[in-house]
């Protein structure tokens, strides 16, 4: 099986393109189903977060989809510009694809180094694929091991300590803007998991008030309850009161699923005077963005979106290079072991299937020959046995030898030649060199052709040796 990872992430694609490629909820199930329908032999998981959209795929080595087909699918399904996507897309294959997933899971590829939210996101992507029945034995193994190893790497290296989440980085920024927080108001817009995690960090600053607003008030109430804040300092406000909240707020966290900005410059400008030009710190971790970038250019407004935080993290990566090296070392061993195991299991399944197929062939021929022998005279027995042998050999060799005619850039003829030599221990006594144009090295043998002479025909194993 070949393992492929194809996608974009915060390093390769701007937030605008990532917004287009975001696949969530029902669209995820539909995408998995559609891709699986087009390529039934493939195993699929799609990981789509605010920082990345990546397709993990395991398929038989020489079958579609190719990287181009996957790019076409993403472009078509998400309505993204094909050229822009092709320029930003990254492709990893086999062990590198496994290594990429392990790095993602361990937080080494995250915007905030070592952040643990990505593990939950990977788990959810894996579960969604399981629900859509697009995961097979290869991706089961790879994803389960990636999740398990990420926990081990975090605990051994401590890479998830310190500023490893959007929330803690946001707190750092808040402390550069404000001196004290006991007279400040924090407003959370949206009630998703990311909002909860970030608000938990902001709540640690002990603001005077923490309001949460959401289109669905019940979700906002549930978030407030999960934050376990006293009712005197936290509460839910209706989404319709957003303008009022923006006037009261000193820190705003937005993380909604809105497809369009909910805080535009036109909406916010009239509020500046009502706010008496107090500084406002806005953390927009939504993708697509909730806050119009022009709002960040207004006086005393400090706007940070998910990409802005990436720059901060890049510096943190340097500071924590030692932890990264330790983590990489752990992952390196685990990736090799995981990939080897996946390959071994794959070979095991292949051998089992091969045995089964050969037994089926043998049984059919056995029955045919037995019928012939029951009606044959004793002197016909040697001929029947020879025919039996030849038919069996031809049937076994028919499919593999017919594949030699269908070499592709991915599996050139030399690849098959080398495999044959290696698998059947064929000696190099008469190597003729590469085939010339138009020459067929090994024409396929029809399984039901009459028994061929043991020497001198193109279909015999001896010919294939050359």
């Amino acid at each position, binding site marked *: 099986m070949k393992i492929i990872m194809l996608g974009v992430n915060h390093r390769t694609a701007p937030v605008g393109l990532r917004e287009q490629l975001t696949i969530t909820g029902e669209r995820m199930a539909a995408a998995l189903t559609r891709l699986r329908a087009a390529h039934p032999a493939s195993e699929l998981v799609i990981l789509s977060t605010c920082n990345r959209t990546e397709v993990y795929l395991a398929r038989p080595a020489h079958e579609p989809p190719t990287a181009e087909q996957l790019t076409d699918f993403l472009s078509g399904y998400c309505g993204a510009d094909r050229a822009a996507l092709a320029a930003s897309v990254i492709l990893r294959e086999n062990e590198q694809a496994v290594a990429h997933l392990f790095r993602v899971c361990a937080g080494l590829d995250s915007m905030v180094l070592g952040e643990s939210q990505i593990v939950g996101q990977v788990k959810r992507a894996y579960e969604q694929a399981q629900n859509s029945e697009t995961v097979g034995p290869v991706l089961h193994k790879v994803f389960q091991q990636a999740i398990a190893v990420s926990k081990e790497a975090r605990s051994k290296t401590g890479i998830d300590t310190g*500023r490893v989440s959007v929330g803690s980085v946001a707190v*750092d*920024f808040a*402390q*550069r*803007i*404000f*001196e*004290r927080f006991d007279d400040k108001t924090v407003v959370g817009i949206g009630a998703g998991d990311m909002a909860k995690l970030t608000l938990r960090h902001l709540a640690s600053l002990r603001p005077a008030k923490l309001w949460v607003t959401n289109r669905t008030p019940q979700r906002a109430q549930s978030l407030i309850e999960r934050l376990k804040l006293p009712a005197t300092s936290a509460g839910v406000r209706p989404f319709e009161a957003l303008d009022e909240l923006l006037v009261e707020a000193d820190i705003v966290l937005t993380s909604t699923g809105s497809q369009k900005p909910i805080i535009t410059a036109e909406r916010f400008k009239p509020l500046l*005077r009502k706010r*008496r*030009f*107090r*500084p406002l710190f806005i953390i927009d971790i939504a993708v697509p963005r909730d806050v119009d970038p022009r709002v960040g250019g207004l*006086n*005393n407004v*400090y706007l*940070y979106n998910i990409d*802005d935080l990436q*720059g*901060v993290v*890049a*510096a*943190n990566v340097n*500071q924590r290079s030692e932890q990264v090296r330790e983590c990489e070392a752990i992952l390196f061993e685990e990736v090799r072991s995981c990939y080897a195991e996946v390959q071994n299991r794959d070979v095991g399944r292949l051998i089992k299937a091969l045995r089964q197929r050969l037994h089926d062939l043998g049984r059919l021929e056995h029955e045919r020959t037995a019928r012939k022998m029951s009606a044959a005279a004793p002197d016909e027995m040697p001929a029947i046995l020879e025919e039996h042998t030849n038919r069996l050999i031809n049937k076994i060799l028919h499919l593999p030898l017919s594949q030699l005619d269908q070499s592709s850039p991915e599996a050139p003829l030399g690849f098959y030649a080398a495999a044959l030599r290696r698998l059947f221990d064929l000696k190099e006594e008469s190597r003729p060199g590469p085939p010339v144009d138009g020459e067929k090295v090994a024409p396929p043998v029809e399984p039901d052709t009459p028994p061929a002479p043991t020497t001198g025909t193109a279909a015999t194993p001896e010919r294939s040796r050359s």
Partner: protein
Amino acid sequence: MDNPLITAALVVLTLLSLAASGLALRRLFARSSGRIATRAEQLLITACSLGLLAVFLYRKIQMGPGWQPLEAHVDGLVLIGLLFGVVILFLQQRPRLGGLDAFGLPLLTVILAWSVCASAWTYRAFDLNTLHPVWMAVHLAGVYMGTLSSAVAAIAGGTFLYVQHRLRSKQNIADTGRLANLESLESLIIRTATIGFALLTLGLLAGLVIQTGGGAASRLGPGWWHSPKVLLAVLAWAVYAVVMNVRFGSAFRGARAAWLSIFGLVLLLATYGVVTALPNARDDARPTRAPSSETPR
């Protein structure tokens, strides 16, 4: 000035301040905590402040019992330099006001370099004996202390703009160590601008009394109220009147207050420049004494 020793001492102190500025700026822009550099910087500022105190005391000893503080412009600059050095040392110890020294020390260097000029080339003694001594003392104290406060507001303004630039450029702020936060800096700007405003108001009122008091004719001539010195001083005063009110819902909050605080100091320095460069603009100076006649001083 008649005493090359004082000029030499001021040159050395200027160089010390320059070295401390270099260390502070290096720490700021290299974004390293540099504990040794911090210690060295503190030593240099301390040495500079003590040196300025020594110069001030030396002036007293040199002049004898008749010496009055702020007898000449150089005395005022040395006093401001001394107090400013102490303020910078104090600010350095404040955990939430880091980075101010990097903006304050270059200003201290400018003040000291100016004092070298005021000592060596543009020395003018105030004609204190011909004026009402109390009002003159109030005027000079108000103006110099107001300038000191305004200088602190200006360095807070410079630091504010720097921190804001870092925040707006979305750079990593984890490596900025003890760099002050915007709220503290804005608060410092407003407080020091308010103190500066009060002291400058006192100084200007005293100057007004000196100009018009006792029915005497204006020392700046009949059109004194529109002389460069008076106009610049009033303009600077107006700027601080705006800055100290920004907290009350003004559109001048944040970066605008920071720029205004810097602009106010520039106006004050321009006023002193006018006073130094244009003898006719001064109401309180007597002509430069000939070296021989200045020797006792």
